[in-house]
């Protein structure tokens, strides 16, 4: 990877920037390979592709809505601050230090809240996958 100053402007410290770009690239490749595997599985699975409708069925929508509600309950069940910290971090895109400043709590508190939230959601995801 080459950084061209013309394209991105002056970079004060290229090394972390490069690392993050490289990490994003690797994740993009991972995602592409997963999609490719899925496609190959579907194609080899036989000819029901034409029959599949592009619209989610009423059942699918119901399950999706129900899952959204379960995610909401799981998150809110962890406590108002944990839910708030998680949403500020993952949905609003605010950094952990900024969140700690905004709420007047320690950085460690924010870190622990995020770990709690993420683990609960990851466990919930596994429940969904097993259904």
């Amino acid at each position, binding site marked *: 990877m080459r950084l061209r100053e013309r394209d991105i402007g002056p970079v004060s410290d290229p090394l972390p920037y490069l690392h*993050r770009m490289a990490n994003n690239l690797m994740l993009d490749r991972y995602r592409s390979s997963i999609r490719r595997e899925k496609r190959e599985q579907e194609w080899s699975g036989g000819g029901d592709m034409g029959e599949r409708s592009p619209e989610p069925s009423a059942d699918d929508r119901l399950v999706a809505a129900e899952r959204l509600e379960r995610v909401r309950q799981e998150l809110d069940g962890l406590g108002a601050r944990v839910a708030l910290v998680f949403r500020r971090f993952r949905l609003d895109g605010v950094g952990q230090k900024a969140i700690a400043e905004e709420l007047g709590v320690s950085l460690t508190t924010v870190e622990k809240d995020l770990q709690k939230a993420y683990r609960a959601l990851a466990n919930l995801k596994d429940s969904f996958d097993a259904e």
Partner: protein
Amino acid sequence: MRGVSAAGIKHDRLHTMIDEQALDWVIRIRDPDFSDWEDFTQWLEADPAHGSAYDRLADWDEGLPAMVPPARPLPQPANDPGEPGWKRWRTGGFATAAAAVLAVGVYMAVPRADPYTVSTGAGEQREVALADGTRIALNGDTSLRLDRKNPRFAALDRGEAVFTVRHDEANPFRVNVGNAVLQDAGTVFNVTRVGGVMRVGVSEGKVIFNPEAQAIDLPAGKALRLAESNGTATTFAIAHDAVASWQHGQLVFDNAPIGDVAADIGRNLGVTVRADPAVSARTFTGTIGLDRDASRFFGAAAPLMGLAAARQGDAWVLKEGDGASR
């Protein structure tokens, strides 16, 4: 009670140490201040299962925003205009009123920060010096929150300010503007937040917009305009002396919507200025010299923009031009 699935069985597959470690890395890497790439690389290289776990969980994390509904709003308690934390959660759009009340309670009851507000009235200007040597110049009708315990932080709630930030790459300066964050290691930049629109122009150095999310780099000569209602951000070039031209008694515009121009004029003159809806989306390019005398100002500025200015009580309105101002 948590963790009970529809089948009545408690699923707790996240018991493997590798998955827990990978999840911790996913969280840490999503943060803008993250710089432990060497540690991360070492962890990745220690075991091929580490990389697979990380890829899988990072991929899942990418899809999270679609899986997490915004918080359910509760009936609003009375808004206390004196509490900036409360006001921000209300415009945040994702936090519940209950969570916001709790956040305000925590914010006030456990003050590890030592916040204070600096503000200016209409038409007033003020300069603040922070403990680290950073200088902030406030334009009129501006409200800025700072923290005595942390000189590398500011929150612009309303108005306009120029930040001359002391260079410190290890500890970048961060400005919260509503839900957006501007991060920089040492630069000069101007920020405006008015009427649901944020604008930032960089005259020296580099500012990163929302380093955790879009991570748009804004080097010197670049500006960004954010429409807060829908989160749309557009970047454009800006001349060096246009960035904080208000400090030199001038307003420099380059393809600026008349709506923005009206807000800028108002903030600098200390009067209410509106743009007639018929003209507010037009754009203007040019330089306007500021003048304390509003009538004289509009007499010169309105025709320059191909508009007319009319008085409505205490306010002025920019509208379709006829060559003369009233």
